[in-house]
């Protein structure tokens, strides 16, 4: 497995913190993450229920389990990425390079990196905790997806289905991804895509 040094942000101190971006996750890595993440998700859910939050308003991806997706890592097309810091997995992402092609007119049908799943550890997510621990996890994983796309010869093209949440969609819009609206083949989740130009502009923004 290879890894690259990367900085993330400590939300309390607003200082940058050294972390590692791993790019060849194995099944055990996903299991290691879930061993810690699942109980934390459950604790947060219990706290919310006790404080009067109704079940429909819970962040329902408390049911999510990366271990159930571990078998996908056997595929050559699948990329498994994770950010490791402070002895824990802080964010995970799974990508694929087949089965999806670009939809934006200027790059129609060209290959791209499709982000299948992306999640920050529950202690980094405001939906689960009042004071998230680390920030910029999603940004770093999105950056990794773009860099993978460049390395594959896909010129930075990335596609993903966003959470149906205006704030999440605004985040992707601000990064320069174009929304192509709800996708009927993906239960009306909004599809977003980075054009090659916008993806490279995103990389240049952070240089």
């Amino acid at each position, binding site marked *: 497995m*290879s*890894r*690259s*040094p990367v*900085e*993330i*942000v400590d*939300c309390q101190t*607003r200082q*940058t913190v050294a972390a590692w*971006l791993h*790019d*060849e996750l194995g099944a055990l890595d996903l299991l290691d993450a879930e061993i810690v993440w699942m109980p934390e998700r459950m604790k947060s859910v219990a706290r919310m229920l006790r404080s009067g939050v109704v079940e*429909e308003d819970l*962040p*329902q*991806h*408390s*049911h*999510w389990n990366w271990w159930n997706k571990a078998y996908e890592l056997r595929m050559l097309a699948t990329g498994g990425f994770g950010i490791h810091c402070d002895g824990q997995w802080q964010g995970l992402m799974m990508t694929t390079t087949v089965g999806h092609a670009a939809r934006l007119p200027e790059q129609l049908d060209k290959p791209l990196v499709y*982000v*299948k799943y*992306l*999640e*920050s550890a529950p202690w980094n997510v*405001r*939906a689960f905790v009042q004071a*998230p621990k680390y*920030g*910029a*996890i*999603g*940004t*770093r*994983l*999105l950056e*990794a997806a773009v*860099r993978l796309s460049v390395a594959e010869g896909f010129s930075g093209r990335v596609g*993903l*289905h*966003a*959470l*149906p*949440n*205006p*704030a*999440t*969609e*605004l*985040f992707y*819009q*601000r990064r320069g991804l174009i*929304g192509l609206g709800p996708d009927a083949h*993906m*239960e009306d*989740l*909004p599809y977003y895509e980075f054009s090659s130009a916008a993806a490279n502009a995103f990389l240049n*923004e*952070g*240089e």
Partner: protein
Amino acid sequence: MAEMEMNQNREWLLRMADEEANCEVSAGGLAQEAGLLKRSGPNESARLSLGKFLELSRRQMHESLESLAEKAGVDLAELTSLERGKSPVRNAKTLERVAAALHVDVRPLLELAGLVSTTDERLVRIAAQFSARLESVKPLEPEEERALGWFKEQAFQHRSKSAAS
């Protein structure tokens, strides 16, 4: 794969962390499979207040929809839809451009539109009071008077005819 050289700019990173703090950056496949498909859409009355605010601000500047759309560099249909306040606001950039053309801060407008998490609870209350204030004192336009008169005549005349038969 070969080591990735990740971005080094700390200011950019801090800005990204601030933006991410307001939302959950996640990819939808996870949401779809875990059942997270309930849309947390913007509050409809906040959206209506937003629309009214945009309309009145535009009229205060003596701009038509067309002229403001042109000045802001936005699609006329999108601007009209924003002022009507009926549909969810999807495009933050349009709202940002309209705010700039109206010389107002876009941040509260993004919150009313539901495009960012509301951090100011007062804002929602103020928006509701704004709408209520307009509704209670707004005199009818001549065209509205005529339409109302026609409706009363047609609807109630029809009902009294039916009652008589």
